[in-house]
C-alpha cells in the first residue's frame, strides 16, 4: 500500500482524476464509516440504555429516545460503589506490586551475572506460557488450607486475592521489562558505581527513572487485566461485599428472568469510562507493550 500512485502527467481531465482518487483513496472513507459503526455501535447502545427511562435494556431499541438519570441514581442503592472500590483496591495493589517486583527482578536479570541467571530466564519464559488461572482448583484448595491458619490469606479475603494475582506477576511482566532494561546503557550504572553509588542507589535513582515508560505500561496493563479478571475473583471472593465489579455485575444480568439491564448499563458506563479514557489516552505506550507479547484479558 506504500506504493505511491503514479499520477497521469497530463491532468486536464479533473473528472478522471477524481475517479482515480476514489478508486485509490476515497472508497476508504465509507469503509471506515462502516467499521466505526461496527466498533462503536454496542458502546453507543449501552450509553443509550444507561440514560433510558425504562429500567431494562429492553424496549430501548430506539437509541436515546428518553433521557433520565434514574439508572445512575439506582446505582447508589446497589453495591456498585463498594464493588468499584474493591476493584480499584485489588487492581491498584496488584499493579503497584507487579511493577515493583517485576522491575526488581528485571534489574537483577539485566545487570547482575550470577549462577542460574540463564536458567532463571528460561524458567520464567516457560512459566509465562501457563496461565495461572488454570490452576484455580488448587489455588482454591490452597487458600482453604491457608485460611485455617491465617484467615487473612484464606478464602473470601481481598488480601489473598491480591497475593494470588501477585503470584502471576513475575511470570507475566519480567520479560517485557527485561528487554526494556537492556536498552538502558550500562555505562550509566558503571559511572555511578565508580562515583560510589551502591546497587540500590543505582536501581532506585538511575534505572527506575529511565524506565518509567515501561513501568507505566506494565502497571496499566496489569491494572486492566486485574480489573477484568473473573474466574479467580469469583472462586476466591464469596461474600457480596467483597466482590469486584466483574463478579458483582455478572450477578446482575446472569439470571435471564430478573436481569437488571438498566442498572447494568449505567454501571457499565461508569465502570468502563475510566479504563476507556486511560487506554485511549495512553494508547501509544500500551500498544508498544501489547505487541511485545502481553495479551489483555
Amino acid at each position, binding site marked *: *500500500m506504500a*506504493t505511491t500512485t503514479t499520477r497521469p502527467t497530463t491532468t486536464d481531465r479533473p473528472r478522471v482524476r477524481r475517479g482515480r482518487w476514489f478508486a485509490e*483513496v476515497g472508497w*476508504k472513507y465509507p469503509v471506515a464509516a462502516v*467499521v*466505526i459503526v461496527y*466498533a*462503536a455501535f*454496542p458502546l453507543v*447502545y*449501552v450509553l443509550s440504555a444507561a440514560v433510558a427511562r425504562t429500567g431494562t*435494556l429492553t424496549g*430501548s*431499541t430506539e437509541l436515546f429516545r428518553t433521557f433520565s438519570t434514574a439508572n445512575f441514581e439506582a446505582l447508589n442503592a446497589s453495591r456498585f460503589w463498594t464493588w468499584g472500590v474493591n476493584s480499584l483496591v485489588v487492581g491498584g495493589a496488584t499493579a503497584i506490586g507487579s511493577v515493583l517486583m517485576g522491575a*526488581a527482578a528485571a534489574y*537483577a536479570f539485566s545487570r*547482575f551475572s550470577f549462577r542460574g541467571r540463564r536458567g*532463571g530466564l528460561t524458567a520464567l*519464559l516457560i*512459566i509465562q*506460557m501457563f496461565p495461572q488461572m*488454570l*490452576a484455580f*482448583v*488448587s*489455588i*482454591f484448595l*490452597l487458600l482453604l*488450607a491457608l485460611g*485455617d*491458619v491465617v484467615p487473612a490469606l484464606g478464602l473470601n479475603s481481598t488480601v489473598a486475592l491480591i*497475593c*494470588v494475582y501477585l*503470584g502471576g*506477576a*513475575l*511470570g507475566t511482566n519480567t*520479560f517485557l521489562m527485561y528487554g526494556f532494561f537492556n536498552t538502558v546503557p550500562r555505562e550509566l550504572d558503571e559511572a555511578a558505581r565508580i*562515583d*560510589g553509588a551502591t546497587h*540500590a542507589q543505582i536501581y532506585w535513582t538511575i534505572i527506575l527513572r529511565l524506565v518509567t515508560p515501561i513501568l507505566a505500561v506494565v502497571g496499566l496493563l496489569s491494572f486492566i487485566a486485574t*480489573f*477484568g*479478571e473473573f474466574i479467580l475473583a469469583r*472462586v476466591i471472593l464469596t461474600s457480596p461485599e467483597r466482590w469486584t465489579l466483574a463478579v458483582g*455485575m455478572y450477578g446482575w*444480568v446472569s439470571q435471564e428472568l430478573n*436481569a437488571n439491564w438498566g442498572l447494568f448499563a449505567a454501571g*457499565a458506563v461508569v*465502570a*468502563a469510562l475510566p*479504563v*476507556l479514557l486511560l*487506554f*485511549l489516552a495512553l494508547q501509544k505506550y500500551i*500498544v508498544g507493550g*501489547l*505487541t511485545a*507479547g502481553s495479551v489483555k*484479558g
Partner: protein
Amino acid sequence: MSTQATHAPAATGTGAPEPHARRWDGRGGGFLVKLALMALVNAVGVSVLWAAYAQGSWAIFAASLVLLVTADWVYVSRRALPLKYVLPGLAFLLVFQLFSMAYTGYVALTNYGTGHNATKEQAVDALLIQAERRVADSPSYPLTVVQRGDEVGFAIVDEGDVRVGSAEEPLADVPDASVDGRRVTAVPGWDVVPYTALISDTALQQRVVDLRVPVSDDADDGSIRTREGSTGQVYSSALVHDEAADTLTNTETGAVYRATDEGRFVSADGEALAVGWRVNVGLENFTRAFSDDTYSGPLLRITVWTFGFAIATVATSFLLGLVLALVFDDPRLRGRRVMRTLFILPYAFPAFLSALLWRGMLNANPDYGIVNQLFFLGTRIAWLDDPVLAKLAIIGVNLWLSFPYWFLVCTGALQSLPGDVMEAARIDGAGRWRTFRSITMPLLLVSTTPLLIASFAFNFNNFTLVYMLTGGGPRFTDTSATLGHTDILISMIYQLSGVAGGRADYGLASALSIVVFVIIGTISALAFRRTRRLEEVL
C-alpha cells in the same frame, strides 16, 4: 535498601568537587526503610509460624519457616545480591503459581472432592458425630456456659451438684460453685457467660452448639451437648471406632463397616458411610475422564470445540485486523488518528462488560435483543440457545472484541517493514498483489507469529467470554453433567470442580487441568522452536 559497603564519595579530596558529580551517600533513609520492611516481614512471618504451630499445620509451618529464613538471610547477607531483587516476586511465584501447579498434579491423583474432603481421622470424627443420638431416657440438665480465657465449657446442675467440664476435660464435681435455682452463678476458675451475652454473640453460639463435654473418661458414656445454651442432654454415638481392626461398628444394627482403599467405610453388604477421606487413586481420574460415559462424550466434543473456537477466533480477528491495517495504513488518508481511536474502542472497553452487554443485545426476543430488532427485522433468532448459533455468536463477539488488537499489531508491523525491500520489489516490477504475497506477508508473519500463538493460548482458556456470554449453554441433552455446547475445557473444569457450589470433584477437575497444561505446553514449545525467541532474548 543499601547493604553494600559504601565507598567514599569520589569527588572529595583535592580542590572543589567536580560540578557534574553527584554525591552518593550510603546508609541513609533507604537503610531505615529496609530495616522497617524487614521488621514487618518478620513480624508477619513469626505470627504465621505461631498460628501454624498452634493449628498443627506442619506443611504451612515448614513452608513459612523456609521463606522467612531465606528472606532474612538474603537481606542480611552481602553475598545474595541478585536474590535481593528477585526474591519478593519469586516468593509469590513459588507459592501461588508453581506450588499451585504442582498441587494440581497431586490433587489429580487423589479422590479429593465431596465425600472425600479430609484426612481419615477427620472423617472418623465426622462420622462419629453424625451418628450421635440423644441417649434414650437420659435426663435433661440445667446448663450454664462458662469460659476460661479462650476455652468454653459447660457447668451443669446434676441433682443439686455442680459439675463442670470442657472439650478436653470430662465433667467433674465443683463443690464450691454457687447456684441460683437452675442457673450456676459462679464457678471458681471459670467466668460465667450470662445468657444475654450468649444470645448476642453468634460466634460464641456456634462454638457452644459444637461443644461436646465428655461425661466421663470413658468415651462410651457419651457427652453433654446443648441446642440452646440453657439445658444439656447426654448424647452418644451409634458408631464405635475400633482402631486396631480399622472398623466402625453400628451398635444399634450391629453392622460392621470396614475401611477400604477407596477412602470409605463399607459394610459387608456394600453399604458405604457418607463421609470418606482422601486417598491416592493413581490415574483413575484420567481414565474416568476419558472412559466414563458421563464425561468422555462431552469431553471429546468440548475439546474439539475448544480448538475450533481458539483457531476460528484467532483466524477471523487476525484477518480482519490485517485487512483493516492494510487499507488504513495509507498516508493519503486524512483523520487516520481519529479513525484509529474509534476502531480500537471495543478493545479499550473492559472485556467482561462487553461479553455481558452482547449477552443482552443477542437476546432472542426482538423486544429485548437489539440485534434481532435492528438487523434481522424483528425475527426471533435464538442466538444463545441454539448449539450452532451460540457457537457463531461466541466467535462473532470475540471477533468484535479482538480485531482492534490485530489492527494495532498489524499496523505497527507494517510501518516497521524495511522500506528498501519494498522499493526493490517495486523496481523489479512486482505488482501490488505480488509484493503483498511475497514480501509483506512473510515479513509480517515473522513478527506476528509469537503473538498469534499467545493469542491462541489465551483464547483456549478464555473463560470470561464463554461464561459471561453463554454460560456454556445450551446444555447437552445426552449427559447428566452440567455441560453445554459452547463450554470450553476451562469452563468444563470449572463446572466439574464444584468450587462454585454443587458436587465437588477436585480430583477430576485437576486431572483435566493437567490435560490443558499439557496441550498448552506442547503448542507453546512447538511455537518456540519455530520462532527461536529463546536465543534472541537470552
